[in-house]
């Protein structure tokens, strides 16, 4: 009986959490048009979430592309089709690795920064002060950060894929001796618009999920050092699981 009641209690708690998150996202959407009327605030956040994440995204993209070049070359060599390396690398990066790894890195770099920033604003009464100045903190603080993340994420994913393809070319063509013409021409003929669209759709969806989770956790963090720390951890864990789950669902739909 205790186990059952514990399970029921836990289920109710999870439902409540989902309800709160849904309401919060609803409010974010409701205030977003007014937040869009002040583009300067959003541009600032695109800079904070996007431009400041560029180094980690570009470095990771380069190494992932290089690994893809090595592994892809080894695999394709067994089938005698190393000239398809460009296609394999491009499809892997554009459709899957680019959006997913960028989103995971985004959750770790920009998501945690958003959560801790908003959480600390709450802990130091800055959000309450805004409420008292008749300024809605969700409109003034959360919505610009959410929208900034949504805009930054597809741009970062595109840069990741681009650098990744360059990394694969660096290993495949420069180091392993794959023919440069074949590498690029096969890629150009095999990669279709829908492959790129799949990656863009995924990265936008991940941007929505990661940014919404980050601002939600920050806004609802307990106003203590421990509370903000826990909220930051939850941002990374929840965002990562959400990205992988959404990736599976979108892949199933878009294939």
């Amino acid at each position: 009986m205790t186990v059952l009641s514990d399970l029921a209690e836990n289920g109710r708690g999870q439902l409540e959490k989902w309800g709160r998150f849904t309401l919060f996202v609803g409010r974010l959407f409701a205030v977003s048009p007014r937040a869009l009327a002040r583009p300067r605030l959003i541009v600032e956040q695109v800079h904070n979430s996007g431009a400041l994440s560029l180094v980690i995204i570009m470095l990771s993209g380069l190494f992932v592309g290089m690994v893809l070049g090595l592994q892809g070359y080894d695999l394709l060599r067994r089938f005698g089709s190393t000239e398809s390396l460009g296609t394999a690398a491009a499809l892997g990066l554009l459709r899957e690795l680019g959006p997913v790894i960028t989103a995971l890195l985004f959750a770790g770099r920009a998501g945690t920064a958003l959560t801790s920033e908003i959480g600390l604003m709450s802990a130091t009464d800055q959000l309450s002060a805004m409420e008292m100045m008749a300024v809605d903190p969700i409109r003034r603080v959360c919505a610009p950060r959410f929208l900034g993340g949504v805009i930054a994420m597809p741009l970062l994913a595109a840069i990741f894929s681009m650098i990744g393809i360059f990394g694969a070319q660096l290993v495949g063509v420069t180091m392993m001796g794959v023919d440069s013409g074949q590498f690029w021409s096969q890629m150009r003929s095999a990669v279709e618009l829908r492959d790129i669209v799949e990656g863009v759709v995924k990265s936008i969806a991940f941007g929505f999920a990661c940014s919404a989770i980050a601002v939600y956790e920050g806004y609802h963090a307990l106003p203590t050092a421990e509370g903000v720390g826990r909220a930051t951890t939850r941002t990374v864990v929840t965002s990562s699981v959400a990205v992988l789950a959404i990736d599976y669902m979108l892949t199933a739909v878009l294939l």
Partner: protein
Amino acid sequence: MNASNAMAGATPGEAIARLTDVAYTVGGRSIFDGLDISIERGKVTAIMGPSGTGKTTLLRLITGQIHASRGSVIVDGEDLSRLDREGMYRLRRRMGMLFQNGALLTDLDVYENVAFPVREHTDLPEELISRIVLMKLQSVGLRGAARLRPSELSGGMARRVALARAIVMDPKILIYDEPFAGLDPIAMGVVMRLIRETNDALGLTSIVVSHDVHEIGRLADFAYLLSGGKVIASGTPAELAANQAPVVRQFMGGEADGPVPFHYPAPDYATQLLGTGGNP
């Protein structure tokens, strides 16, 4: 100093905020039960009481950040329980609040902090905003600190900037949460003078939550003493000082033990030390 200085436009004796039979319960614990408080227009009213009696909770009730479980809270003619979010925001434009730590926005400098409410609520040209902000900073003596960041300010300066920000939209009611906590005597004197002068010069109503008996005695026109979720005494600071009720005497005299016990409720000391009362 203690005389009422209600300005023109304020009707002396009229309540600008009134809490009637207010109860507030959180997590099954009763914070207030049957609280009656009336804040007179144009005066500096102090809310005092031992730590943990819910003074800050009372401010949150008056500002509509939380709602009473029972009773009514009426501020400037508005029943807070009937206001929606927009209505609450309209009311808050007529209020200013000074948080204990200043609560300045850390990503903005002093000037932008003071300009923040003006930018959010009006479309005034930059030139006019600049004049308003400089005038408010001048009134708290910090015009020269306009471009400092909040991290570069002392506690007293941060509170003065927060005061400038709180008055920048010309509110009717100004609320101070522990304005003297952690200040050195000079900064305390400055903040005290500013509260009095701001109240009288701008014709405001001020509510000051504090447990600094001495400062409140010099500053307030009227004071409420809270304990156990109720008002246990009220009157002018002089009347409270003359009150002979044991709990009032303990608070006003700063005695460590009395009706408010020194020890938090605990099992019998000897039993616990000898190991039969269980670990804490």
